[in-house]
């Protein structure tokens, strides 16, 4: 007589492998028109500072640390100025140790707190990369939704401050390759405030990239929205409507694109959030203009532009009248001397040359 077949032991059921990478409590909601508190404009540094103040007042679980962030210095760029005076038990200097800054934050978030920590220069974040790649973003996923680690890591990034190779890096693409993070990269004071407030309430890890050239730059100054204004993640913004071509960009290069917007009749899209990216705003614009260029300050090779271009190629192929182009930094390190920094980073001239190609194709 045949033995009955032994049933196979049960492996975990496939079909939901991306569940628990992000929380269900997603920071996606309808964006409202901001109500401004004044006609005056404020800088991005002031906007970030006010967002942090408002959120600290609202949520007593928010704690902060980083190098030099405590008063009287209040951060090397002044983002956290005044916060230790308001909350001496909640805002403190850390040891000069980036793995500690993010790793201890990860643990405190497991314990129910909301750390918003600062990495003084994104270039110095790499000792913390182990925690930011392996520990923090995997926790919810690897425990099948049991634990979570909703930290906010703020980093000053970007060049054109004569900072040389180690005070100028743009890091969005490297970090975007790790699932589990929201990555935010605002270009102006209003967005910085609205996005920081969303980050402070997110249920997942958020990497908040602050372009240091924009901290006090006049172009990034804008009006201050009131305390109720939050910007959802994953929503870009059309900075100028146009018809000849679309330029997709974020951070400081938004202003590079705007310089040429009238000359070329460009539609300029500021992504504002890198992860998740607002595909819809990009695809809709490409379907209208039929020509698109991605512009960013990070190096071209495997920059975030490569991902943007791939998504456009897969979704808008029939609408393209020209190859999708990219403009970014040379595949080099950022040099210190201004003449050399200018050579490395994408310039208005680089953009004009490539736009001319794009439109002549």
């Amino acid at each position, binding site marked *: 007589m045949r033995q009955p077949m032994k049933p196979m032991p*049960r492996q975990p059921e496939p079909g939901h492998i991306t569940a628990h990478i992000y929380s269900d409590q997603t920071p996606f909601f309808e964006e409202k028109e901001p109500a401004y508190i004044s006609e005056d404009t404020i800088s991005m540094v002031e906007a970030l500072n006010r967002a942090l103040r408002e959120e600290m007042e609202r949520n007593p679980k928010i704690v902060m640390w980083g190098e030099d962030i405590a008063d009287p210095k209040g951060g090397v760029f002044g983002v956290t100025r005044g916060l230790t005076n308001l909350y001496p038990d909640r805002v403190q200097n850390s040891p000069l140790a980036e793995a500690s800054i993010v790793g201890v934050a990860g643990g*405190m978030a497991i314990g129910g707190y909301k750390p918003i920590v600062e990495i003084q220069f994104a270039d110095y974040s790499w000792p913390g990369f182990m925690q930011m790649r392996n520990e923090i973003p995997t*926790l919810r996923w690897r425990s099948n939704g049991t634990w979570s680690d909703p930290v906010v890591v703020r980093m000053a990034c970007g060049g054109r401050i004569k900072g040389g190779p180690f005070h100028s890096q743009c890091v969005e693409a490297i970090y975007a390759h790790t699932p589990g993070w929201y990555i935010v990269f605002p270009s102006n004071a209003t967005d910085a405030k609205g996005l920081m407030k969303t980050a402070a309430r997110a249920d997942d890890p958020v990497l908040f990239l602050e372009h240091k050239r924009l901290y006090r730059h006049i172009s990034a100054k804008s009006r201050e929205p009131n305390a109720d204004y939050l910007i959802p993640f994953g929503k870009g913004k059309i900075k100028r409507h146009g018809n000849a071509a679309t330029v997709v960009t974020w951070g400081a290069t938004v202003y590079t694109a705007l310089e040429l917007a009238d000359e070329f009749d460009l539609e300029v899209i500021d992504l504002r959030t890198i992860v998740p990216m607002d595909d819809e705003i990009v695809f809709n614009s490409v379907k209208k203009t039929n020509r698109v260029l991605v512009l960013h300050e990070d190096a071209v090779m495997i920059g975030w532009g490569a991902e943007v271009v791939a998504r456009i190629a897969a979704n808008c192929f029939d609408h393209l009248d020209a190859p999708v182009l990219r403009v970014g930094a040379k595949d080099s390190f950022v040099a210190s001397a201004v003449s050399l920094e200018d050579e490395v980073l994408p310039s208005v001239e680089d953009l004009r040359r490539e736009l001319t190609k794009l439109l002549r194709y």
Partner: protein
Amino acid sequence: MSRKSKETPTNLRSEPERRIVPDAVVLELYRKILGVYYIEERLKILTRQGKISFLASSRGHEKVQVGTVMMLKPGHDWFFPYYREKAIAYALGMPVKDIFLHMLSREGDPSSNGRNMPEHFSSRELNLVSQTACTGTQFLPAVGMAKALKKDGSDAIVYVSSGEGAASEGEFAEAINWATREELSVLFLIQNNGYAISVPRNAQTTSEIHRIAAGFGLPSYHVDGTWYESMYETMPGLIQRMREGSGPVLIEAEVVRLDSHSSSDDQTKYRSDEELKRARERDPIMLTEKYILQHRLLSQDEIKGMRDKIQAEVNAAADEADAAPA
């Protein structure tokens, strides 16, 4: 002890004549390390059957792990273990079936439902935090958890551990520094079995871990982790003081690694027969059994009865986990 002290008390005395642990505690410890032993034995069979992809046996470490949990408060204290610590999960009270479901990467594995590699236990009820497989990355999150507990005004302690190899990681130094500077209640337990896979301890550092930690101002102690008397004399008082806010403590426990690093390793390639024989002479289970017989806490027959009963319980749970769905 002063925060700046560089003293590193050593307590490696292991004379079974000294009867300082209450008999009931010895028997509880013995029962639990036997539970771990029979879990490991069954896991070895399941690994040879190709049902388990990775096994890091805790043999030789079981006493320091179970013994430490017995000095702490399960469900109140927090645990950030490393990959050779199923005895921690077991001693905390993780059901044996759940241990096997995780090790077998089966549907319903409560630690991660098959996402994390075997040997990475997790349970919210037990305050046992999910780990990665990277050596030494658990230290900084453990410090952060202790910071949260201090802010909450809790007297809970955070246990974090590793082998001696991971103490070479930079994050270990950062973590003992931060925990010490903020006087956080972290119990660092370094289980020194002499080997990081095949790399012997003298290739890690010319110093010793408890001395390195003491240099950070962290009160550090050196104990024999194969012999409970040594731990029992040193640790409960320290743990009580930690609850009262005295700050972190580091324990470097000398243990033996009786099995290969993992199911992917063969230690006979780099450890001599003579050395392995010496290690087996310090088998923590054998030492406790000798003690129990010497002090007549149990007879040979009672020990056999106890072993059979525990083995049967473990195997029943293992069978249930390994069984096909109903």
